């Protein structure tokens, strides 16, 4: 009897997890795509990254304890995959400043130029620092969640953010 009850409970949990996963793809797909684009600065690689993120998320759904933390959890997976790509497959998937296939989309030409400069500056940042800047200053994750996504302490994340802004300042000044 106890076994049956436990089985039912597990199934209920699983059904909930699967529902959450479908909703997550709908709700967070575009946000993850935008994040991937500024992390990789490549449309092609960004799409692959989002797909990989969802694949991994589906396999690891049972590790998500709090469904309300889905957004930062997905971002954590995506960021770590991006960094893994940068670290292990530097020739296969270049996450460096040479790669820019993101079109400029802004309304006016001056803003377009500004955004192009900013993308170029982001491209010059080392991947981990870029990820910190993107997650905190663009996506809006708190420092704590940014640190969690990067797998570092909050102090380290703060240092990376500080360095990131300093390097962006220099790059935009050149």
């Amino acid at each position: 009897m106890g076994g049956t009850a436990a089985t039912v409970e597990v199934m209920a949990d699983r059904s909930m997890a699967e529902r959450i996963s479908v909703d997550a793809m709908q709700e967070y797909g575009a946000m993850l795509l935008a994040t991937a684009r500024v992390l990789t600065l490549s449309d092609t690689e960004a799409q692959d990254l989002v797909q990989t993120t969802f694949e991994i998320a589906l396999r690891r759904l049972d590790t998500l304890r709090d469904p309300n933390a889905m957004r930062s959890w997905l971002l954590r997976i995506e960021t770590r995959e991006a960094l893994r790509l940068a670290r292990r497959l530097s020739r296969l998937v270049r996450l460096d400043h040479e790669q820019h296939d993101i079109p400029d989309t802004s309304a006016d030409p001056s803003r377009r130029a500004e955004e192009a400069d900013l993308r170029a500056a982001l491209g010059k940042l080392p991947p981990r620092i870029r990820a910190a800047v993107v997650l905190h200053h663009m996506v809006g994750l708190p420092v704590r969640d940014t640190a969690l996504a990067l797998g570092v302490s909050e102090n380290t994340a703060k240092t990376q953010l500080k360095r990131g802004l300093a390097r962006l300042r220099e790059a935009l000044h050149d």
Partner: protein
Amino acid sequence: MTDQLNDAEISARLDSLWTSELARAEADYQSLPGRPGTRAKLVVSAGAIAIVVAVLALAVVLRQVGGLPSPGSNGIQLGSDGLPLSIGGETVLRGDEIAQRLADDPTAAFLAGGRLVVDGNGCSSDPSAATCVETWHLASVDGSGPTFNLDGAADSTGFIRTSGALTVFRVDPVARPTCGSVACPTELSASTVAWRAPTKGPIPPGASSIDGAIYEALWPDFVATYDSDGETIAGYTAKADLLSTHDRPFAVYGDDLKMIVGYQVAGQGFVPIGEYSLAPAPSAPPVGASPLEILTAYLQAVKDRDCPAAMIVTAPEDIVPTTNALCSSSARVTAFEVSDSGPSQSTYDTVVFSVTMTTTGGAFSLPDGPNAWSFTLTRQRSGGWRVTGGGPA
């Protein structure tokens, strides 16, 4: 040389870039036929699908009863005409509002929404003919309001050549065509597609000529696929798939254009998802397969661009990005050769092989031609071997 920006200014610029990227991603994510995550949805159980369908049905009923705006992806609220009310806090103008804005402030940039319509005089019979001149318009959704000529629409970022799609364009005031010394009252200069909803349905009359010419701009994004009775719509297949040259089975999507309900198979037509598996379902090799056999199976699968078959011989979490890049990105593995001198490293539970992979099409990935790679295989708890790593040697 300009003054250095302070942190707040840099932060503001980052925020502005993020707003642009998010708007673009929202438009792109909606319209990508091969949306990331689509494949993964295949694993969702029927029970979960039923729950989602029930929730969506309830939402539709509530919306119809209460006249509520409907939520689009990422929380975009849609008006009763199906267009977003606003994007990123910016109001989407439609119909007479557009005309009014052009009259009031001809120098303003704004978001203009409506139904994208092509006027392809002379294109239906032969789209490649010199007489085929294509112009795009933004009509009001219900057809009762003004219609605007869209200058530069086909060159705008994110443009998809499908007539009939509900679309929001960012209108660029700088490049707006002029009539004499003033901006034309019915001309819009489109710079970016800020949002669009994919279209679905049968191929309309006039989109294909008797002699086989296809005017694809008139095809919906997702073309109706019929059941074996030839009358019931079983689902929808992406136009891009149907117009491609390969003959692999194509995914057929349900009414929501998200859930896969079956496959369009050459020579068989529509096959429901429960009755057909996309490839011969990949089966795991026997536990006793050697590392070389496992690696060869993996490389053959990526060469065949058969991602599921490749995944089955991997320890997924470590090798997923590599496998995706090798079997589904623009780079194609056309040949491979495992070094015949045996593993370059070998221990009880780890083996490393040197492999020469010949690739093509990898502008951002692999250089064309032969590439020296090494692949790591790890013995699993089951005793079998799996590919767990790979990269340039």
